[in-house]
């Protein structure tokens, strides 16, 4: 830590760096010199002249990705009144920017600024338009690219642009900077990073001339010497244990690699992970996470009584073989794949959603390799009555749907921005967006019954022709994957097959990483990349080595999802307690403790039904769900269930898992208090309340049963005493148990997976 502090101090002393300006080194180019200034000054931002309609008749391309159009707007439009080469200082453009003439955007620069001088010089030089021969920005580099900081430190970044004419320029002053974790570190407009009081990881995105670069920073915890020694010692000990403990049967070796990579990061950040969770916590946690189901009392006791060293791995394997695993993960995928039943005029969607839901469930139950699973969806063809994955094409209907769903669901990329303009934080252009759209341009639909907006029972097939043109240039675009070259296609080839093939290649940077990140987030509560479907260089993984290791292992396993889950669930990180220690209480990035999270709507409702022994009766559509049907088994979101809506059941309108809301709300509290469904479960004579009130067992015995059902643990002595005392004070035994069971439903321990 001392060494780190020294480096930081030295870096601070070097401030400020004086960048070399392009304007001082020769001619001024519109693309490489003028536009970056417009961007820096915010002229072409989305809130000003860069928005789709422009501002007060002056429209620039968003963030300057279309220099030719910007040149026309600045120089040619409005009879050229914005530029006066003969009297540069009287150019309306400069008068507005300096607020000499009234400007809605206020003063953006001053006449004595570097920016003003560059712009003036370009005008004085004759406002030379962009040319093919102008040097082009090839690469943007930020130095240092990563650095460890101490708390309340600062460091100046240097940004260097490399051009096609082999020149380089320091563009530190002209670049834009954004921190992804302002709580940990902020960055000034001229590239000086300031760390705050919190430790953790952060990144600074640097943008200049349409290129981005990322700086990765870390602020280790400021431990005292004795604390540092303790942390180092304990982590060394953990590392040593990993090396020395023999591999337990059924535990994948990669789980140890996961642990090693996490320990390395904890060492870097001075964090000590929480203790391993106890068996009671783990059996509840893993059963909920794999099966979306609370463990029964019997399952809890069996696990607690199991004395085998590999009982944890064996439990994970058992859970993965249970039908609830497939049901629960099918629910997750049905959300992502927009298996949607609502929003339409009739209930004709139900057959399709049920069919698709069943197909997903079967795929998960049989552990269909993930590449095959995705490939069958992407290339699905045929009648939606008979080919369930073709039902994906029912909700995903348009070119933007195809592109954005595929990119977000399977590649973890949010590319929506690039439909209208170049992605501000990434490399994706409209060319990338519409070239990916071209992959689906020949998806044909025929037949079907128009059920309000969305037909059912369509036949999805490969059309003879289908073209996509660049919306701005009008160029015909060939099918191309994100970042890849055009596919080599014969006239009869289905570009979707090429896309599926491209995805599953081991060197594909997105496919496997997105899936392992998604599954990691499912079990650990946060993705290594967070949000899980927003992978970009400017939103880096918190532990790149861990993500790469998991992705590599997943690919080598043949995209075996159960294997991936075993790897994650057998890791120490997954087994850690959620109770923090003094070293990791602020940690939200490195998985040094288990991050508790509220049970999802369906799991919570099922959990209540399970512990109270009163199933929910779901209705809707043509039929009636069989008694005992669980919420996680419902095929779509259009089955009426107020509880599920209140607790955040997603509408399945996008491929984003963020649609599922787990934030608390007043409505949720009211639902637990006033819900007729909860009331029905608590008053059903055939339910747990009826059974406990009818039996003659001692209250202590019943309380034991209740705690094992609710929390997968025995009650603490004080809990037992309090509960028994309460029960004994109530004259009406049924009412007493009803009150106790009701109050326990609202506890965090019940409502959270921890």
């Amino acid at each position, binding site marked *: 830590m001392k060494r780190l502090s020294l480096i930081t101090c030295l870096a601070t002393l070097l401030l400020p760096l004086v960048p070399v300006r392009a304007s001082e080194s020769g001619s001024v180019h519109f693309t490489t010199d003028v536009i970056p200034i417009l961007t820096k000054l915010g002229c072409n931002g989305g809130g000003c002249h860069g928005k789709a309609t422009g501002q007060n008749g002056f429209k620039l391309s968003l963030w300057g990705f279309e220099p030719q159009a910007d040149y026309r707007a600045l120089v040619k439009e409005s009879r050229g009144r914005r530029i006066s080469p003969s009297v540069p200082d009287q150019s309306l453009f400069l008068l507005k920017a300096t607020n000499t003439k009234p400007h809605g955007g206020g003063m953006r620069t001053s006449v004595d600024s570097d920016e003003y001088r560059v712009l003036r010089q370009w005008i004085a030089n004759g406002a030379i338009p962009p040319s093919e021969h102008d040097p082009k920005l090839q690469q943007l580099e930020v130095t240092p690219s990563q650095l460890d900081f101490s708390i309340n430190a600062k460091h100046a970044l240097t940004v260097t642009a490399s051009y096609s004419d082999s020149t380089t320029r320091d563009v530190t002053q002209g670049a834009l900077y954004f921190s992804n974790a302002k709580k940990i570190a902020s960055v000034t407009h001229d590239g000086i990073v300031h760390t705050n009081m919190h430790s953790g990881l952060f990144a600074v995105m640097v943008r200049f001339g349409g290129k981005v670069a990322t700086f990765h920073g870390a602020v280790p915890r400021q431990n005292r010497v004795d604390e540092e020694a303790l942390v180092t010692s304990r982590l060394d000990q953990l590392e040593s244990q990993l090396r020395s403990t023999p591999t337990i049967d059924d535990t994948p070796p990669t789980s140890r690699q996961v642990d090693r990579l996490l320990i390395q990061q904890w060492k870097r950040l001075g964090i000590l992970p929480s203790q391993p969770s106890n068996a009671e916590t783990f059996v509840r946690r893993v059963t909920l996470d794999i099966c979306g189901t609370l463990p029964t009392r019997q399952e809890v006791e069996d696990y607690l009584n199991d004395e085998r060293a590999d009982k944890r791995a064996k439990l994970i394997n058992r859970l993965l*073989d249970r*039908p609830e695993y497939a049901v629960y993960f099918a629910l997750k995928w049905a959300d992502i794949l927009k298996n949607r039943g609502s929003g339409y005029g009739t209930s*004709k969607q*139900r*057959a399709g959603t*049920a*069919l698709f839901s*069943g*197909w997903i469930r*079967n795929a998960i*139950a049989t552990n269909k390799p993930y590449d*095959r699973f995705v*490939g*069958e969806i992407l*290339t*699905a*063809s*045929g*009648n939606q*009555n*008979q*080919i*369930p994955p073709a039902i994906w094409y029912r909700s995903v209907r348009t070119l933007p749907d195809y592109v954005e769903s595929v990119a977000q669901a399977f590649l973890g990329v949010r590319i929506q921005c690039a439909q209208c303009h170049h992605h501000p934080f990434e490399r994706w252009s409209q060319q990338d967006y519409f070239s990916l759209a071209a992959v689906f341009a020949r998806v*044909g639909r*025929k*037949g*079907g*019954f128009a*059920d309000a907006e969305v037909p*059912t*029972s369509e*036949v*999805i*097939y*490969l059309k*003879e022709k289908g073209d996509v043109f660049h919306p701005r240039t009008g160029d015909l675009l060939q099918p191309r994957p994100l970042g890849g070259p055009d596919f080599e296609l014969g*006239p*009869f*080839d*289905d570009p979707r*097959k090429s896309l*599926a093939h491209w995805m599953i290649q081991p060197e594909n940077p997105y496919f496997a990483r997105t899936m392992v990140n998604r599954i990691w987030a499912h079990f650990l509560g946060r993705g290594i990349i967070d949000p899980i479907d927003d992978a970009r260089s400017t939103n880096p993984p918190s532990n790149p080595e861990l993500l790469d290791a998991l992705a590599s292992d997943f690919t080598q396993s043949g995209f075996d999802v159960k294997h991936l889950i075993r790897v994650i669930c057998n890791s120490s990180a997954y087994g850690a307690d959620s109770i923090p220690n003094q070293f990791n209480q602020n940690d939200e990035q490195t998985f040094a403790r288990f991050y508790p999270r509220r049970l999802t709507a369906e799991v919570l409702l099922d959990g209540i039904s399970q512990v109270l022994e009163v199933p929910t009766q779901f209705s809707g*559509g*043509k*039929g*009636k*769900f*069989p*008694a005992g049907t669980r919420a996680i088994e419902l095929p779509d979101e259009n089955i009426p269930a107020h509880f599920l809506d209140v607790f955040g059941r997603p509408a399945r309108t996008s491929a984003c898992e963020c649609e599922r809301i787990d934030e608390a709300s007043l409505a949720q509290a009211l639902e637990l208090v006033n819900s007729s469904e909860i009331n029905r479960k608590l008053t059903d004579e055939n339910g747990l309340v009826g059974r406990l009130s009818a039996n003659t067992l001692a209250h202590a015995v019943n309380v034991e049963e209740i705690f094992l059902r609710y929390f997968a643990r025995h009650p603490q002595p004080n809990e037992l005493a309090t509960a028994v005392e309460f029960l004994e004070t109530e004259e009406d035994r049924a009412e007493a148990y009803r009150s106790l069971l009701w109050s326990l439903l609202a506890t965090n321990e019940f409502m959270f997976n921890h």
Partner: protein
Amino acid sequence: MIRFHPNHRLPALPRNTRLWLTILGTVILNSSAIGQPPTPLLKTVFPAGCQAGGSERVVMTGEAMDGISAIRSSHSGIVFDHDEDNHFTVHVAADTPPGFYDVQAICAAGISSTRTFFVTTRKHVLEAEDDGSTVNVAISGQIKEGGEVDQFQFPGKAGQRIVIECWADRMDSPLRAILELFDSSGQRLASSAGYFGIDPAISYSLPTDGQYVVRLYDLEYSGSTNHFYRLDIGVGPRVLFALPSVVQRGQPTQVTLYGWNLNESQNVFTHFTVDVTPPNTPIALPIQRHPASVGSDRFAYHLPGSDVPIEFATTDVPVILDPAANHAATAACPITIPCEVSGQLSQGNEYDWYCFEAKRGEVIHVAAWGERIGAPVDLDIMVLDTTGQQVLATYHDEITNTGGLRFPTSHLDPAGRWVAPTDGRFFLVVRNLIGGLSNDPRRVYRLNLRHEESDFSLVALPHTTASPGAINVHRGGRTIVDVLAFRHRGLTGAIRISPQNLPPGIECQDVWLGPGVNSAPLVLTATDNAKQFVGALELVGTVEQQGRTIQHPVQGGTMVRTDLPNGSGRLTADVPWAIADQAPLRITANGHETRKHHLYGELTVQHSAGGILDVAVHVQRRDSKHQAPIRLTGVGLPGLISNQVATIEPDQQTGYISFYLPQHLPPGWYTLAIGANTTVAGADGKERTVEAFSNTVNFEVHPPAFQLELDPYTPRRVQRGEVVKVNYTVHRKNGFIGKIHTELAAPGKVTDVGNLRGRGVTFVGQTESGVIQIIVNEDAQLGSRPFLRLYAVGVLEDEVRFHGSCFLDLEIIE
């Protein structure tokens, strides 16, 4: 050896025919309600099958099935004895081939719609009686209510390939079945949501000895007594398809059968080679078939030990079996046209290449069969040039749906006509548009390549739109049978439909499906004293073309369900019909009423494109005391002719309805009928809505001599006492230069049309435009004047030879 099925073209009656007819006659004659009862709708036969050589108690349920007395089946070996109410005992002769047959119920209101009844060689048990002790059973069951899940247990042995197959959609049930297989520990081993179309099947090699469980439920957890099914659990052979799937008529052929448990192999799919000898004449199949599979001659084949027949198509041209390696232009399989190819596209991205020689101008008709023979394919055909690089033509789906939702005839199989642009060797590529990533050997196809030898197929079905119907002719009344045509290989001319062997008391005019017309109404008329009858309607279609007469029998069809978004229909073994109770009214139409012209006397109208067809309608009400307006519309109109509505007021017995014959209507014979909606008094004194139909109106459309066109600015509303001038133009056609005389006219009247008078104008020579003056009398009836028109006659040698009209919409106001 192949086993032939008996020819079922004649109606099959139960063995106790005399008794049956007596019961039937009693029931029908004793029904005396004046109001026409609704058509019996048979929804469920349960159980819907029986073991060959066995008997079963069955229950028939449906709507309007009062007085049910007998069941008609399409096979003489299936006989139903009436027990009581809607309960029957069915006896199936031991030699009845396994398969799927048609049954109809005979009720007080006539014959019912059609349902499927199966015959199995397996032990047949009811759902409730299944004790789970054996395999090789056919179970009849129902998902009686929403949320019901039926479970069946069976003993299995390690290594056995068990085949579990559910029949629901394929036997008229609305059940969308899901099958699941579990072992004794509750572990799910396999599931299916659809294998034969949407009917599921599981083929699974059992891992251990033990008890296994099958679960069956509806996809949407729906249920009712109509959600019936057949569930087969067996380890016997199940043939799925054959290659070739088409064989040359009369030629013994070696074919390979593919399916499950066909030999000792443990593979999922096994195969077996047999010799078949196709018959020389078509044979009715005990297999339910797609509406558009009419017109292909087929026969059924039963592999010994197998319970399900498969079908082979027969052809009169050489059959070529798709070689396995023709997946590129360089390996194209040479073929000589005419021929029939039997192919397979197992791989998802497979293309079968063929090459053939053609002369410039040579016409070749391409027709593929895939979806219609049950293969999970969407075929696409391309013809490429001699280099194999340039696509000259592509052929996709047949999108024409002649039968609508009740009998959807559209399908995914491509067909088309191709003319060779030059002499040379061309390529033809067959591919499957829905192959995806998977392999499926069931993706077989037939490819028919022939020269321009026109042909057709015909289907007759009840004239119903809202529910499955039946053909019941009420005494003293008429009913419509819709005839649909499938034109093959360039046939465009008119098709004449003629009835044969009608019983006494029944009349039926020949009807015409005019040039390019694919449906027409055929009307059966019963006299007041027609005797009871239940049987099959025999119709023959005839086309005279280039000195060649082509004749084909008309096959039967039916709607199956109304609750599917895209409708559901199928072919039937015959065209069942019956004579039923008295009709409440009779409608008679005359499309050839003469017209009195003040200059030229009594005229017989010759129809031409751009003219108007007037149909005089006469009503005979059985209960003359009950008078209600009768709403008239056209029924079965040729596609280009717009429908009209007219009303015959109470106390009126006659009226008119007129149809404009569009200018582009091709010359030829056409047919239409008039439908009438009104109310009659029911037996209970309450009014009941009834629908009646007229006799058919056949009319010939001639090439026009001229066509009339009104000035678009012609006033639409005129006042009483006003005189209006209407500008119009006469377009002379086909070289006619004679005199044209124009008048104002209405159905049955010329010049003086209900206090409107139009003064005629005569054109001679090349005159083409004129004005007709219309005088609206002060006492002219207010309101719109239906079917008013400008009427022109073309005169040659002072004789009216041609007629033409165009509607003139006028509303008389104060």
